[in-house]
């Protein structure tokens, strides 16, 4: 029996003349966190967006809990997106809504909770990301790191099975990076699977169970952190040494 929670088979994606993905294959077990590395412009974020249907793929198959989802209509994908959530690089908070309204948004949309229950749930979620004092703040009142943490709170509020993290630590100072790592580890300990797109190898090593390297439109390396560290592959070596 297949225990994969997510499986991507022979995914191909092009933007006009540019081939971004030329046959990406990987799978993910329940509870696993995968680090997706690769040079800039190799299509890491496009891969995340393709998984939840924000980008239409050209060829290939995507399975979530053994159900093929790449053929789903936009309407059918709405339900999938409550189970696979996306933490945007910038947070992508709704700037006309307060922090409470941002996090409550999916709860109002997809649950039957009362307003007071939603408020309790938002406060609980904010405390997980160490942001409980920001309840009434507007996104413009928050720093970049705080916006990312609120974005993470919004991503987990529906208790998803998978979170797709798009460079959650990019552009943050070391203190905020540690805070985001701590938050992601909390999600991991709750049994939530994740795919982390990052350029920050120490961060990937702290959170991920497995590393994938995307190169020339394909997965060129897949292995545990130990295998990643001990790999003789020149490209992996160049990643590790930063040269």
């Amino acid at each position: 029996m297949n225990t994969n929670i997510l499986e991507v088979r022979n995914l191909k994606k092009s933007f006009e003349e540019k081939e971004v993905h030329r046959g990406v294959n990987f799978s993910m077990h329940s509870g696993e966190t995968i680090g997706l590395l690769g040079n800039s412009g190799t299509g890491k974020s496009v891969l995340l967006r393709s998984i939840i249907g924000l980008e239409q793929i050209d060829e290939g198959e995507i399975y979530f809990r053994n159900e093929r989802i790449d053929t789903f209509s936009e309407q059918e994908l709405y339900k999938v997106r409550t189970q696979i959530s996306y933490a945007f690089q910038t947070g992508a908070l709704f700037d006309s809504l307060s922090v409470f309204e941002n996090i409550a948004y999916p709860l109002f949309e997809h649950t039957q909770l009362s307003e007071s229950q939603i408020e309790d749930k938002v406060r609980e979620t904010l405390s997980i990301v160490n942001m409980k004092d920001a309840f009434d703040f507007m996104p413009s009142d928050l720093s970049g790191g705080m916006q990312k943490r609120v974005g993470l709170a919004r991503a987990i509020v529906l208790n998803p099975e998978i979170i797709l993290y798009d460079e959650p630590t990019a552009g943050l100072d070391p203190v905020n990076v540690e805070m985001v790592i701590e938050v992601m580890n909390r999600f991991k300990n709750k049994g939530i699977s994740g795919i982390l797109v990052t350029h920050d190898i120490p961060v990937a090593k702290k959170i991920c169970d497995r590393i994938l390297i995307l190169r020339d439109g394909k997965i060129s390396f897949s292995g545990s952190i130990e295998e990643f560290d001990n790999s003789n592959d020149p490209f992996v070596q160049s990643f590790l040494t930063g040269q």
Partner: protein
Amino acid sequence: MILAKLKADMKLLGEVVILTKDTFTASISRPFYWGRFLEQMIHLGAGSLSITIVIGVVTGLVMTLQFGYGLEKFGGTLYVPAIVSLSLMRELAPIFTSLLIAGRIGSGISAEIGAMNVTQQIDAIRALGTNPIRVLVVPRVLASVISLPLLATLSAFMGIIGGLSIAYIEFNMPAGFYINKVLSTIKFSDVFGSMFKCAFFGLVISILACYRGFQTTEGTKGVGATTQWVVVRASIVILISDFFLSKLLILLFN
């Protein structure tokens, strides 16, 4: 070159038609965002009241002044109330109000949605399992389609009041005579026709603004280009379609 431009225009037209169809489908099915709709009614409708009143009054004043002195030479001052009220109700108020709204609301909607698009907020709406058309487009389109006819009717009414004041002050025309002339000239079909045209113009403005907002790329530069595109295109469509709608209404009611 011409063929490529024609192809691009046909693609644009097709996408706008699809967006209009999707908006219609979303507006007659659940969930309907009443809060967002009322917010837009206040923002688009109530927020345009003062400028609409000013446009109406000033148009009425100028029209009455010009027609009054123009027709006075031929002893035709008595026809001023009929001419001014009819032209205001049938053409000037709908067109001026719609062009004004295209500038004020069309640019506002497209800039807002465009900015949301370049900051990935539209993607966030989709990623959170909701439909951006239902959340963003339906409330704006319905608010425009409902508020624009009301604003144009108010504008025409204020124009008639403005005309009345000038007719009384400049041409010593009794207020009772002016009002009687207006009431005997304007028919239900004129009011209905004006509102029908404005509802269509409201649809054109809001759909084009939302469509272009969704297409916006290239950051703040793209947002600026988007607002310009919407105001120009919406104004052209309003002016051209006004002719055909006027012809249609004349065929229907005359």
